[in-house]
């Protein structure tokens, strides 16, 4: 194996591993770190299911090599849950509004939207639609996802 040593912080925890340079960050997260909340859909940057945060920004983990994340701070969907084990405001909003059907795309939506709401806590419906346009929901549950984002935005801005 063409091993490369990488050090990164994942969900607040320091991680040090030797990885194959061709390993995708999405596979590293799922298969080396067992954080299987990050889902893998298309693997070429179209569906958004694998969205995570790198250094605070939502990115597609299937379009990054694990070696590129060396020295970075990574957050996956597992980071959203509150310390007491309860859903955070965004997860709760998705639950309340039935904003998930099969749930496969949900982690990607949550990570995209959580980054978005940090920058814009009072989004218009049009801004919400643009924000989630990079995530595909094959059950076409968009109406409820939009409702959930509105509820979450309400919670944030209060």
């Amino acid at each position, binding site marked *: 194996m063409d091993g490369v040593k990488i050090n990164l912080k994942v969900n607040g925890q320091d991680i040090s591993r030797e990885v194959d340079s061709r390993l995708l960050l999405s596979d590293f997260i799922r298969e080396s770190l067992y954080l299987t909340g990050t889902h893998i859909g298309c693997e*070429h940057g179209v569906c958004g299911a694998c969205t995570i945060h790198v250094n605070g920004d939502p990115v597609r983990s299937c379009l990054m090599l694990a070696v590129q994340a060396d020295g970075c701070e990574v957050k996956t969907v597992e980071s959203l849950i509150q310390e007491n084990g309860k859903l955070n405001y965004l997860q709760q909003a998705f639950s309340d509004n039935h904003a998930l059907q099969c749930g496969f795309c949900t982690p990607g939506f949550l990570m995209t939207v959580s980054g978005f709401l940090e920058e814009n806590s009072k989004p218009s419906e049009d801004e919400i639609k643009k924000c989630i346009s990079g995530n595909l929901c094959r059950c076409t549950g968009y109406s409820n996802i939009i409702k959930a984002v509105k509820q979450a935005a309400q919670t944030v801005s209060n």
Partner: protein
Amino acid sequence: MKPAKFNYLRPSSLEEAVHYLSEYGEDAKILSGGQSLIPLLNMRLSTPKYLIDIGRAEGLSYIQEEGESLVIGALTKHREIEKSELVKEKCPLLSEAIRWVGHEQIRNRGTVGGSIAHGDPSAELPCVLTALRGEVVIADVNGEEIVSPEDFFLTYMLTSLQPDQLVKEIRFPILKQTSGSAFVEVARRHGDFGLVEVAAVVDLSEDGSFSEVKLAIGGVNSVPTALGDVERLLVGKEPTEESYKDASVLTMEMIEPESDLHGTAEYRRELSGTMVIRALKQATIRAQGGRVM
């Protein structure tokens, strides 16, 4: 689908990067943001022996004003341009166009140099660069050279970059305060590849006629195309429905779109005519609004 095996190199400077390129150029690929290259690696459409990751190379990420140009380092991310007040002030066309590049997740990683070097004819930045007659600064072990977009973009995904060269910097001419600009695009979903996109910049004389027009179209030819004949047709004319229509007709004659699963050649041609009118009108309104009458 996973990338094929490669040797991973991570230069920390431009000098180190071009040194690797001079050694492995034929067998190597440059990786910057990876938003175009990694899908190609994932699908094994590209299987380089050496992957030169310039993502950590120092001194290649900057946006600054230099004389008449806005100079942007190759590693500058789309998102940084989107957020830049300097870009908004000096080159609003670029600010407007950048929001059409991929989705936010893509713009957070994708770089300006990567987009230019990839040479996708439907990408937004090559279209803006072509409209403005900007410059691409290319580096290799022997130094730097400056290439015009016309000489740089050769055909679909093919540029004049030699195996031992990389894109170091892009120079976008600064727009006059009096000019109006517009970037319009039609895509199947916001953030997807544009079917047709048009970048327009207009300046008006005291009498209200066009004194200068810059126009480029993307998504319809094998390279982003400056519409020089349309520009010349408009200069000296009043911005009337008739001159917009003439510009539209000439545009449809000048382009050679192809059919694909997203749209037929005929559709693209018709759409191009409409989009040119739309871009010109919007740019003209902005030029009129921007003037002290």
